[in-house]
C-alpha cells in the first residue's frame, strides 16, 4: 500500500491558520505514506497535475487530499484519481478547512487538529475497497404532474426533443390557473391568446399523452424506472367517441356555481370548464347530475349523436413506467376567511384577485364588467388590499407571495380600462416590482391610470348602507383613511395545494413548513430535488409568476431530457450491500429505510439446504444514507465507502 498525501493551502484559507508544511511533514511520517506535499490550490489544474505526476512517479495506489469539504471538490478529486490511474473510491478527503482552519484561531492547535484529521483519513483510506460505478437502465418517458402552464411548457419541451411525455391533470381540462386569467402583466397580452396555442400544441403532439380528470395514486421505483399508479376518474363521457359538439351541455337543465368562474357564473352538470378546454370533452359532475342524484333526466344520453355518454363508467386504475418525473402541481389561494377584520369572508363584495380576473375577462361570467357580486351593479370605487395572508406571521404566511404587487397593479389598470369613471385605491406594504419592465408598469398604472397608492394596512372592513367601508392608515402622511368602496379586491397570497405533503411523501421529496416542495439546492440546483429523477417547476416550489414558471418548466425539462438521452444511468456505488450469509431476514432495515430501497428476496440457502427470505437493496433507489446499517443487529448490511470496517479504523486512529 502506497498512500500519497496532498495538503492544500487554499490560498490563505487554510494556510493562514494551519501550518501546512508541518502538516505535510508529519503526514509523511505515518506508516504506508510514501509521498506527501503541499500546494496553493490543489483543485486547480496545476494542483491536479501535481497529484497525477506524484502517482506516476511514486507508484501511489491510494490518495488522501487534505483540503475543503468533500461536498465541494470530492467529484473533482475522484476524477483526478481516475485519470491518474487510481480507483476513484481509493481517494479520501480530510476536511481541514470548514472543520479546522475556518473555525479555529490558534495556529498551533489548528495544525495539530489538521494532522489528526489526516490520520483519520489515512486510517479510512487504508480500508477502502475499489468500487465500480453502477449502471441502471432508463425508461424513456417523462411524467408531468399538473397540466397548468408549467406542465404544458414541460411537455412541449420534452416532445420537441422527440421523447414521450405524459401530463397528469386532475381537472377535466389542462390550462390550470393561467386559463382563468384575463390579461398578463406587464405586457397585457391576453392570457388565453398566449396559452391556448400551447394547449393545442400539446394536444396535437404525437409525443404527448394527456390523462385529464386523473389523480396520482402511488409511485414506486427510482430514477430511470418509476412505476406510477394513476386513477382515471370516471368522466362519464367516452373520450374516444365524443366530438365536443356541445349538444349535451347545451341541453343540461342543472345550474350550479362554476368553479372555473370562482362561483361568479353558473355551469351545467355535464360541462366543459371553459370554451377552449383541452380535451374538448365534457365531464359529468355526479354530485349534481339529476341522473346520479335522482335517477331522472338522462337528456344528455338521449341527445348525444355519438353515444358518448356512459353513466356506468367506472374509475380506471392504470400503471405506467417513467424514467423521470416533473412535478408541476401548482398552488392555491390563501383563504382570507381567517381575517376577522376583513369580515371572516362574509362580505360578498370583498373578492379575491382571481374573482377579479374572471370578471375582467370578456368571456367571463360578467362579460367583462366589473360589478359588485352582491347586487350586480357596476363597481366605481374599488379598494385593492395587498399582502392578504402574505408577510403576516400572525395570521398568514411568513413569506412574500411575489406576484401580488404586479397583479394588483394590473387589476387597477384593467379596472380603469373597463370603466373610465372607476377609481382604484391600492393599500400596500412595499411595492415589489423586481422583474423586467415591472417597475415601469407600476409607475404607468399610478401616473397614467390614476390609481391611488396608499402605504399602509387596512384595519377594518365593514358594510354600511350597501357600501364596504374600508378603514386603514396611510403611513406616509400619517392620516387615517376611510374609503366607501363598492368593491374590495384582496390580493390573497399563494399557498401550496392542500394535498402537497401527500404528493411529496409519495415522491420522496422534502417540503418546507409551508408545504412548498424543497429543491436540492436553492441556488445551484433549483429545479432538482434530492430524489434523483424528480424535478420541480412552477409554484409548487415557491410562488412564481408566468415568466418564472415557464423558465423553470424548461429548466426541469432539460434536466429530465438529460436523463432521457443517456443509454444507461451512471450512479455512485456508495450504496448499502447485504451479506446474504449473515442476514437473518428480520427486515428492521426495511422499516428504517425512508426511500423504500430495500425489498425481501428469496434465496436458496445452500448451507441450510432450504429457501429463506433476506433483505435486498435496490441499488438504483438507495441513497447511501446508512440508516439500514445502523439498525442491522447482525451487521449484515454495510454501506459501501462507509463500511463498518472503515469507520472502526477511523475511530481506532483517534
Amino acid at each position, binding site marked *: 500500500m502506497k498512500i500519497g498525501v496532498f495538503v492544500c493551502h487554499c490560498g490563505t484559507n487554510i494556510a493562514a491558520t494551519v501550518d501546512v508544511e508541518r502538516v505535510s511533514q508529519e503526514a509523511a511520517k505515518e506508516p504506508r505514506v510514501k509521498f506527501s506535499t503541499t500546494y496553493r490550490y490543489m483543485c486547480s489544474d496545476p494542483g491536479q497535475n501535481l497529484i497525477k505526476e506524484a502517482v506516476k512517479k511514486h507508484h501511489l495506489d491510494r490518495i488522501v487530499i487534505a483540503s475543503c469539504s468533500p461536498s465541494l471538490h470530492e467529484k473533482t478529486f475522484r476524477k483526478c484519481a481516475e485519470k491518474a490511474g487510481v480507483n476513484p473510491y481509493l481517494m479520501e478527503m480530510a476536511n481541514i478547512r470548514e472543520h479546522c482552519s475556518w473555525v479555529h484561531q490558534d495556529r498551533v492547535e489548528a495544525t495539530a487538529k489538521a494532522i489528526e484529521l489526516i490520520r483519520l483519513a489515512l486510517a479510512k483510506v487504508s480500508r477502502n475497497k475499489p468500487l465500480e460505478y453502477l449502471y441502471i437502465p432508463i425508461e424513456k418517458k417523462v411524467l408531468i404532474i399538473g397540466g397548468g402552464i408549467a406542465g404544458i411548457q414541460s411537455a412541449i419541451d420534452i416532445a420537441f426533443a422527440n421523447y414521450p411525455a405524459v401530463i397528469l391533470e386532475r381537472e377535466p381540462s389542462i390550462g390550470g390557473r393561467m386559463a382563468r386569467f384575463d390579461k398578463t402583466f406587464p405586457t397585457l397580452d391576453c392570457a388565453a391568446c398566449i396559452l391556448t396555442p400551447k394547449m393545442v400544441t400539446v394536444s396535437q403532439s404525437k409525443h404527448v399523452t394527456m390523462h385529464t380528470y386523473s389523480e396520482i395514486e402511488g409511485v414506486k421505483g427510482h430514477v430511470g424506472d418509476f412505476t406510477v399508479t394513476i386513477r382515471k376518474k370516471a368522466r362519464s363521457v367516452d373520450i374516444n367517441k365524443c366530438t365536443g359538439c356541445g349538444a349535451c351541455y347545451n341541453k343540461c337543465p342543472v345550474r350550479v356555481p362554476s368553479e372555473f368562474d370562482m362561483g361568479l357564473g353558473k355551469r351545467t352538470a355535464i360541462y366543459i370548464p371553459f370554451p377552449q378546454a383541452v380535451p374538448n370533452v365534457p365531464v359529468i359532475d355526479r354530485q349534481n347530475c339529476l341522473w346520479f342524484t335522482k335517477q331522472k333526466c338522462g337528456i344528455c344520453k338521449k341527445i348525444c349523436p355519438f353515444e358518448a355518454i356512459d353513466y356506468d363508467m367506472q374509475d380506471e386504475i392504470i400503471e405506467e413506467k417513467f424514467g423521470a418525473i416533473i412535478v408541476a402541481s401548482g398552488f392555491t389561494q390563501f383563504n382570507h376567511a381567517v*381575517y*376577522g*377584520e376583513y369580515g*371572516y369572508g362574509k362580505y360578498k363584495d370583498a373578492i379575491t384577485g382571481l374573482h377579479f380576473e374572471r370578471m375582467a375577462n370578456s368571456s367571463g361570467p360578467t362579460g367583462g364588467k366589473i360589478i359588485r357580486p352582491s347586487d350586480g351593479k357596476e363597481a366605481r370605487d374599488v379598494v385593492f388590499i395587498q399582502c392578504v395572508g402574505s408577510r403576516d406571521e400572525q395570521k398568514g404566511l411568513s413569506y412574500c407571495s411575489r406576484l401580488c404587487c404586479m397583479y394588483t397593479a394590473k387589476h387597477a389598470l384593467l379596472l380603469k380600462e373597463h370603466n373610465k369613471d372607476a377609481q382604484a385605491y391600492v393599500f400596500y406594504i412595499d411595492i415589489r416590482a423586481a422583474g423586467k419592465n415591472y417597475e415601469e408598469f407600476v409607475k404607468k398604472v399610478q401616473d397614467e391610470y390614476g390609481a391611488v397608492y396608499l402605504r399602509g394596512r387596512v384595519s*377594518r372592513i*365593514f*358594510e*354600511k*348602507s350597501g357600501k364596504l*367601508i374600508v378603514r386603514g392608515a396611510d403611513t406616509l402622511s400619517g392620516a387615517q383613511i376611510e374609503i366607501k368602496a363598492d368593491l374590495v379586491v384582496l390580493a390573497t397570497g399563494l399557498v401550496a395545494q392542500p394535498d402537497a405533503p401527500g404528493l411529496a411523501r409519495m415522491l420522496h421529496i422534502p417540503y418546507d413548513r409551508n408545504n412548498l416542495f424543497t429543491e436540492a439546492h436553492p441556488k445551484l440546483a433549483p429545479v432538482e430535488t434530492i430524489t434523483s429523477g424528480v424535478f420541480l417547476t412552477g409554484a409548487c416550489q415557491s410562488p412564481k409568476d408566468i415568466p418564472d414558471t415557464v423558465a423553470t418548466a424548461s429548466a426541469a425539462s432539460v434536466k429530465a431530457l438529460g436523463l432521457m438521452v443517456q443509454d444507461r444511468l451512471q450512479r455512485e456505488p456508495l450504496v448499502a450491500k447485504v451479506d446474504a450469509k449473515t442476514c437473518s431476514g428480520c427486515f428492521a432495515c426495511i422499516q428504517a429505510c425512508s426511500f423504500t430501497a430495500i425489498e425481501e428476496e428469496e434465496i436458496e440457502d445452500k448451507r441450510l439446504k432450504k429457501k429463506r427470505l433476506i433483505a435486498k437493496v435496490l441499488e438504483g433507489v438507495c441513497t447511501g444514507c446508512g440508516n439500514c446499517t445502523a439498525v442491522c443487529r447482525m451487521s449484515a448490511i454495510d454501506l459501501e465507502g462507509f463500511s463498518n470496517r472503515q469507520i472502526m479504523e477511523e475511530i481506532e486512529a483517534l
Partner: protein
Amino acid sequence: MRYAYFPGCSLHSTAKEYDLSTKAVAGTLGIELIEIPEWICCGATPAHITMHLLSLALPVKNLLLAKKMDSYEVATCCAACFNRLKVANHFMENDSVHRDKVNEIIGEQYSGEVKVRHFLDILINVFWLKNLSERIIKRLDNLKVACYYGCLLTRPGEVTQFDDVEEPHLMDDLMKILGVEPVDWPYKTECCGASFSLTKTDIVLKLSGDILQMAYDEGAQAIVVACPLCQSNLDLRQAMINKKFKKNFDMPILYFTQLVGLALGIDPLKLGLNKHIVNPLKLIKSVGVL
C-alpha cells in the same frame, strides 16, 4: 360556585349600578361573590403609562390577596380591571425577568396561578347559557340592542383569551337567550375614547358619538356594555355629543347584568336602572317588561 370578587374602583363609585346588578344576578343564580378584603386599585390606565413594573405589581398584589382566600378564582366586571389582571398573570407566568422583579418588590412569590374570569365569561361558560335560559322568568322580546365590547375586553387575544378578538359574540349570545335581538354592527370593538374623557373630552365626543350613530343607524334601541368606562362615556357624554354634533340621541347604555337581572325578574331598582343619565326606564316599559 364561589369567586373572589374584585369590583375595582368604578364599581364602587360611578358604576354603582354595575356592582348592584352583578351582585343581584349572582345572588339569584347562586353564584357566590366574596369581595377580596383590602383590595387596591388595579392600576388601570395611569399605571401602565407611567411605570411598567407598577402596572404589574398592583394587580399582582390583588391576585395574592385572592390567593389567600379559599375561593382562589377571581371574578371581575370592569373590562380594564379584567385586562390588567390578565396582563399581569401573563407576565408572571411567561416572563421570568418581570416575575422576579415584581416578586422582589412585593416580597412574595407569585407566578400567575390565580385564574381570572370576567363575569360575562362566568355566566356563559361556567354557569352555562342553557342553565341560565331555564331560570328566565320574563323574556325581553321586542328589544333591539347593540352589544358593545370596547377595546379592552378581547385584546390582546393571546392575553385575554376571551371571545373572538375581531368579532366578539359572547354578549350577543347572552342577549339572544334573554329574548333580546342583538344587531349585527361593525363597531363592537371600536374605541370610545376611554380615559380621555377628562383630559381631551373632544376626542371622546367624536369617538363615542360615532359609536352612538352607528348603533342608531343599525336600528339599536340601546347599547349593552361590559365596561364601566364605555358606559360612562356613552351615557354621561351623550348630552354633550348631542349638543356638539346637533343630534338627538336618547340611547340608554345598559350593563349586560342589568338585562340579565330583568329577565330573571329582579326589581329594576335593585339593578340600579334609576342611576343612569339617559333614562332607560322609558324604553324598558315600552318593551313591556315593567
